């Protein structure tokens, strides 16, 4: 093809391409617009804030990495990072572990099964703040329900929220209780999606109950668990309401996690710079864990 014919063909292609690009822009544009305002811009601005000293009212004073240096040389911040790790690992482990056990139980034909499922799921729909207040009463060492129950087996209730050794356990229990139902529902759906034929084949091959669980159930649930790990971990990292209502990060910072430290620094101490450092660390932590999980999932998650 030469001359005008070639030019015509090129014009046709590019007009089709232009249309496609326009369509692409129309479809992506609205999302992109919202993401830019509510996700990307805050991210960039937060990076800037982490480099300044600012009390939200006066002028911003550039301090470079001063806020990072300050926080990373404080014992308190080391405790905050440790608390975040303990809270996240414990809650994710317990939610996924107990979630699996309860889902396996509810997957069998039990009396009142649907009722039990509803009861297990209901805490998910309640507000964390309201639950925190209810659990404050339950965990009270002198007039709490748990103290009464422990009394029946001859145990004294620990001072859950005022003893630095127990406060973290207290908020973990409430977070797990509130979010367990979510894991149960997801795992239950996963269990019911595993083809029955696989179990039958395993049975024919002579696999016992544990063998079937190990060779069929667990691999079949791997995408579900991958999803659960990611979502519950992100939720744990960002858990704020329960801690705020129950302990306000105390006693003596025993339950101050990164997200709570962010709130403390920003809104109680009005130090935007140091709060922004917490946000940066939180973001990088979540980002790194998500990357690791994605790499792991490539090798170990089996999509049917």
């Amino acid at each position, binding site marked *: 093809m030469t001359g005008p014919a070639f030019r015509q063909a090129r014009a046709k292609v590019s007009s089709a391409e232009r249309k496609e690009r326009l369509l692409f822009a129309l479809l*992506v544009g609205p999302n*992109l*617009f919202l*993401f*830019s*305002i509510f996700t*990307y*811009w805050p991210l*960039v601005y937060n990076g800037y804030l982490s480099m300044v*000293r600012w*009390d*939200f*009212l*006066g002028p911003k*004073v550039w301090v470079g990495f001063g806020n990072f240096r300050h926080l990373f040389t404080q014992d308190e911040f080391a405790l905050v990072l440790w608390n975040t790790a303990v809270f996240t690992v414990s809650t994710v482990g317990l939610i996924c572990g107990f979630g699996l056990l309860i889902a396996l139980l509810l997957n069998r034909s039990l009396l009142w099964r649907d009722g039990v499922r509803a009861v297990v799921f209901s805490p998910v729909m309640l507000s964390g703040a309201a639950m925190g207040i209810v659990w*404050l009463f339950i965990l009270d060492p*002198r*007039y709490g329900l748990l103290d009464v129950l422990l009394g029946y087996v001859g145990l*004294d209730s620990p001072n859950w*929220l*005022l*003893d*630095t050794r127990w406060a973290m356990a207290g908020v973990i229990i409430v977070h797990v209780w509130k979010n367990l139902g979510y894991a149960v529902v997801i795992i239950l759906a996963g269990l019911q999606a595993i083809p029955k034929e696989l179990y039958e084949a395993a049975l024919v091959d002579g696999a016992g109950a544990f063998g079937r669980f190990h060779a069929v159930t667990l691999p079949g649930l791997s995408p579900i668990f991958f999803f659960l790990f990611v979502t519950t971990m992100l939720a744990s990292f960002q858990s704020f309401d329960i801690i705020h209502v129950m302990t*306000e990060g*105390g*006693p*003596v*910072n025993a339950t101050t996690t990164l997200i709570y430290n962010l709130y*403390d620094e920003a*809104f*109680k*101490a*009005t*130090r935007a710079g140091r709060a922004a450092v917490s946000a940066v660390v939180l973001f990088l932590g979540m980002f790194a864990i998500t990357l690791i999980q994605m790499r792991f999932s490539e090798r170990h998650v089996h999509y049917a």
Partner: protein
Amino acid sequence: MSRNEHRSISRRGLLKAMSAGAGMVALAACAPAPAVTTESESAAAPAAEPLTVLLWSSYSGKNGEAEQALVDKFNEEMAGMDLQVDYQVQGNYEETAQKVTAALQAQDAPDVALLSDVWWFKFYLNQTLVPLNDLIESQNVEVDDYHAPLIEEGYRQGVYWWIPFARSTPLFYYNREMFDAAGLPDRGPATWEEFGEWAPDLVSRNGDELEVAAFVHPDSASYIAWLFQGVAWQYGGAYSDPDFTMRMTEEETVAAGRFYHDTVHAYGWARPSKSIGEDFLNGFSAAMMASTGSMGGLRANAEFEFGTAFLPEHDFFGCCTGGAGLGILNTTDADILPYAMDYIAYVSNPENTVFWSKSTGYMPVRKSAATSDEMTSYYEEFPQFKTAVDQLELTRPQDSARVWVPNGDQIIGKGLERVTVLGEDAAAVFADVNETLVNEAAPVLETLTVVES
């Protein structure tokens, strides 16, 4: 499969990169737009509607009802003038201050805000409060009738910035029935040493555990640093001097800290509590130091007779002021300013001060209110309140470390938690606290020098 996956990931990656780049451009293009809309809206609003003074405040429960009643009364009296106060509760003192801060950023702040003892100074320092001298004069506010220790706290460089409203002091509360059962006199202890002698008769134990305590310490969130301040003074110590010289490591301040430590960890008659008010109301503590502002709630809810007393002494008497006052934000329109001042003067006039004090337990901020006939007959009916008013004369303004250093209250409070909850030695803890306070005070001092030079 793997090739497909690979391709889809790289396409996604490309999309992400593109969206990030395009996002910045879109953002840069649209950023100013919302501001324009807001401005045009707010410009149109005042012309069409009657004058409104927007008030942000912090009270709930009995105190909130009383404040609402004051606003309603004001609005009723002003109805003929086409003037209304729009009363909005924003949460506790901290939440209110946070929202005022955000609102100032958004250029959408209230006209009058209730600011607590630890927050008003931040707004003063950032020059966001209106100087009130001219308004006080033009609206004929009798400024000399306010109790001196209260009005002087909001007075700097010859200018009034913050007018007392819901002002309180710590007060010693005791359960009269428990004191009676223990064979103790019906009065508060004159000194902490005396209380130390009484305390063993007031406690009851379940094995090693302290079931009923003689005294309870709050946590940092419930203002332990406010309540301990007087104790530090009683020992001859302090948090700091007005010029921000920190005094946490002084022998006397540390001795007060060690006393707090010992009440829990050596004498064993006090314990840290999540809610001292609930412990007291439920009979799990025989006594407590708490705000006079808690008196209304205690009176409504206590199923026993309680008594009030001056704070116990050690070498000296020591008791600080506290609570909140009202300020006008400098974003207020000029035509609203006189009315904003009118409202502040109205709710703290002698008549309304009596109503407010009787309803809540907050101090009568006006001298003439404290000596009025109505108040005098109220003292007879409820002598517990008279004690609080008598003590007011002996109070003094708070140390700069707690109220003027950003987060100073929580820095000291968390240190005190280490002493009462963890049982750490006060000397070591206060040394840490002192260092933090010195560092945090530095930028305040810089700004203050600029503002007040």
